[in-house]
């Protein structure tokens, strides 16, 4: 239909059923035989007369020259049509109820068509329906939206219903405020068209109810009001009404306002739905962080076809990946813990009470009570002590005095310690303080009850691949956090790697190797730190080192863990240096067939002679170790 004049539309709507009544009645009249069917003829003639009266009324009120009609006129029109309608129905029902032979084969059928047409003419006096019997009048094209028209005036209600149905909406109606609230509570409604002036419960009260309940707060309400009642309209908009429609209705405005309100509601619904989905994704992110995410948790959101759906799918995949890696790590850690356990049982713990500077039971630096010697290294001796101030175990490392003989080297060392103290990670032994007492320079550190990887390898020979990977991953993690704050270890070797009874790796001496930097190299043999087997070629030749030097050392440690042998070995220092610079180590798998190819490749790459050929960053090493299946 492309009718644009609302009066013409209504005229068409009303005339069509009358047209049917006249048409069928006349047709039946043609078939009747007189005098046999005199009574039928009379009834049908009265039907036609009544229908023609109805047509006259329609033509009078809805004249072709008119473009609009007031509610009052409409109400009067319906009232005038009710009478001919009643007469038609009475006649036809009488004919249908009559017994005897039918004048024509389709007589009853045609009468019922007339009856149906008469029923459509005017909304008939609605018998008292149970509250909320406002059934959906049309379910066609429910996709366009469901509107609830609330008006106590039957004519007005009907006019709006017809027009909105014509626009493709599904229209529910309610004759009063209470009924409207009931419908809203029971049915799905997109927009409420609410008359302001109604007996008992007026539009403002209904609006108040709707806007104060959480479930209906966001339901758009368009107020219907006479244009001159601006104060009421203003009050409604203040109370949260979306819009208003002035009476009499201007069809273009009606269409535009409802369409706009519907569009806004759709957007809001969509937005809310997106927020809800996004809420799930962020909740899932927290669950991932807390380690509580279970793959598939986002399945509902992941089915969405929009960006949030994609986000959920990516999240889910990543979380599943993390989950898988985590369980793999746990499994590997378990193996490492077992190895540590076995090693600890076999290592004889011989407590040495006296070191070069301190002895057991001695009070040091005012607050530490020395317990025992833990180890000796190139830089000094490590003691276990009790911090009496904090009542906690600590490790004290006394430094060889020649390393800190001048102010410059002390300052540089302090800088390095300051940096190292910034590393806070479970795989790094925490550095507490640096100081001097009685001419002895010392560092205090976190005390770790455990064994070194050196002890472990001496005891076990080599480690299972899974245990070696667990160690390598923890080492990579510690290097990653240190490199991130700009600290390079420079002396990664099995002696500096502690393992606690749970298999947790703790890297010692971050920053300390810096002390020896000036004297690193071959010239001052007494100051060579650590074992050249773990030193990168560039470190041996005294070139500048960066994080890739630590990665070389990590490769050497991993190599030894996997095979039980250092990657390069020689009977003496000089030939060892030469070999580190020139000799390619054999692939770990040639020594231990269990080593998977991916691990082979990774370790050999870490041990590349030139830094550019190595894995460049500790985080990449960690990634690659995690990825080993």
């Amino acid at each position, binding site marked *: *239909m*492309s*009718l644009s004049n609302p009066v*013409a539309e209504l*005229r*068409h709507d009303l*005339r*069509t059923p*009358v*047209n*049917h009544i*006249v*048409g*069928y009645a*006349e*047709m039946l009249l*043609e078939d009747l035989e007189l005098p046999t069917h005199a009574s039928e003829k009379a009834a049908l003639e009265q039907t036609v007369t009544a229908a023609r009266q109805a*047509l006259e009324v329609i*033509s009078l009120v809805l004249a*072709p*020259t008119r473009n609009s009609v007031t509610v009052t006129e409409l109400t009067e029109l319906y009232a005038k049509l009710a009478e001919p309608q009643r007469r038609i129905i009475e006649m036809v029902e009488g004919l249908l109820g009559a017994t005897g032979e039918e004048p024509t084969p389709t007589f009853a059928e045609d009468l019922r*068509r007339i009856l149906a*047409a008469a029923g459509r003419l005017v909304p008939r006096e609605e018998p008292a329906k149970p509250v909320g019997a406002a059934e959906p009048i049309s379910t066609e094209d429910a996709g366009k939206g469901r509107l609830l028209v609330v008006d106590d005036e039957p004519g007005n209600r009907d006019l709006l219903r017809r027009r909105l149905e014509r626009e493709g909406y599904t229209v529910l109606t309610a004759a009063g405020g209470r009924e409207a609230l009931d419908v809203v509570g029971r049915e799905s409604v997109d927009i409420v068209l609410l008359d302001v002036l109604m007996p008992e419960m007026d539009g403002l009260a209904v609006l108040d109810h709707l806007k104060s309940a959480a479930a209906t707060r966001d339901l758009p309400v368009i107020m219907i009001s006479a244009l001159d009642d601006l104060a009421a309209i203003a009050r409604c908009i203040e109370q949260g009404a979306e819009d208003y429609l002035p009476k009499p209705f201007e069809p273009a405005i009606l269409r535009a306002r409802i369409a706009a309100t519907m569009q806004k509601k759709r957007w809001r619904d969509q937005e809310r739905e997106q927020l809800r989905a996004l809420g799930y994704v962020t909740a899932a992110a927290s669950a991932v962080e807390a380690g509580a995410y279970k793959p598939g948790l986002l399945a509902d959101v992941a089915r969405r076809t929009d960006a949030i759906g994609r986000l959920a799918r990516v999240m889910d995949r990543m979380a599943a990946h993390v989950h898988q890696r985590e369980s793999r790590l746990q499994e590997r850690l378990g193996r490492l813990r077992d190895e540590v356990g076995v090693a600890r049982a076999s290592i004889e713990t011989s407590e040495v009470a006296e070191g070069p500077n301190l002895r057991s039971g001695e009070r040091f630096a005012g607050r530490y009570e020395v317990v025992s010697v833990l180890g000796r290294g190139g830089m000094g001796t490590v003691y276990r002590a009790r911090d009496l101030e904090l009542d906690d175990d600590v490790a004290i490392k006394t430094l060889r005095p020649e390393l800190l003989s001048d102010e410059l080297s002390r300052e540089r060392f302090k800088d390095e310690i300051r940096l190292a103290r910034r590393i806070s990670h479970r795989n790094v032994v925490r550095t507490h303080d640096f100081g001097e007492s009685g001419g002895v320079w010392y560092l205090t550190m976190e005390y770790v009850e455990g064994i070194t990887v050196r002890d472990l390898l001496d005891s076990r020979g080599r480690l299972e691949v899974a245990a070696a990977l667990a160690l390598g991953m923890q080492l990579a993690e510690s290097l990653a956090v240190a490199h991130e704050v700009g600290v390079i270890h420079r002396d990664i070797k099995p002696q500096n790697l502690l393992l606690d009874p749970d298999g947790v790796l703790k890297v010692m001496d971050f920053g300390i190797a810096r002390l020896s930097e000036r004297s690193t190299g071959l010239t001052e043999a007494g100051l060579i730190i650590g074992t050249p087997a773990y030193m990168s070629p560039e470190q041996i030749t005294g070139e500048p080192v960066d994080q890739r030097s630590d990665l070389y050392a990590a490769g050497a440690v991993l190599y030894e863990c996997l095979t039980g042998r250092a990657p390069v070995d020689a009977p003496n220092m000089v030939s060892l240096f030469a070999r580190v610079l020139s000799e390619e180590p054999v692939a770990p798998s040639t020594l231990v067939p269990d080593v998977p190819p991916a691990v082979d490749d990774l370790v050999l790459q870490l041990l590349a002679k030139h830094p550019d050929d190595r894995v460049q960053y500790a985080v990449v090493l960690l990634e690659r170790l995690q990825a080993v299946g």
Partner: protein
Amino acid sequence: MPKILLVEDNEMNRDMLSRRLMRRGYEVEMATDGLEGVTMAVAGTYDLVLMDMSLPGIDGWEATRRLRQAPETTTLPIIALTAHAMAGDRERALEAGCSDYDTKPVEFDRLLGKITALLSGGA
């Protein structure tokens, strides 16, 4: 007997008009929308078309224009049926190419008169 094509989307109108025409001896075929009406009119052999102007899809006005453009139906008599009863509708209908015009509800005898006139007078 003359053959009439009734183009009308309303089922009751179709039923009623066709039956009343048939009992007057006309052969009636029916289309329910504009496009179907044009297709049938062009392809068939009708003596007259009764065209409702308010049709879904292409309406009666457009259907009439198309029929006038098709060589097969350039002179086929078409009676427009409108529910508008607007001043100027008659002129509009004739302008669109209709041979005559009537309003709904149909005064059957009046319509019959127009049909008879068009069919006997020749187009």
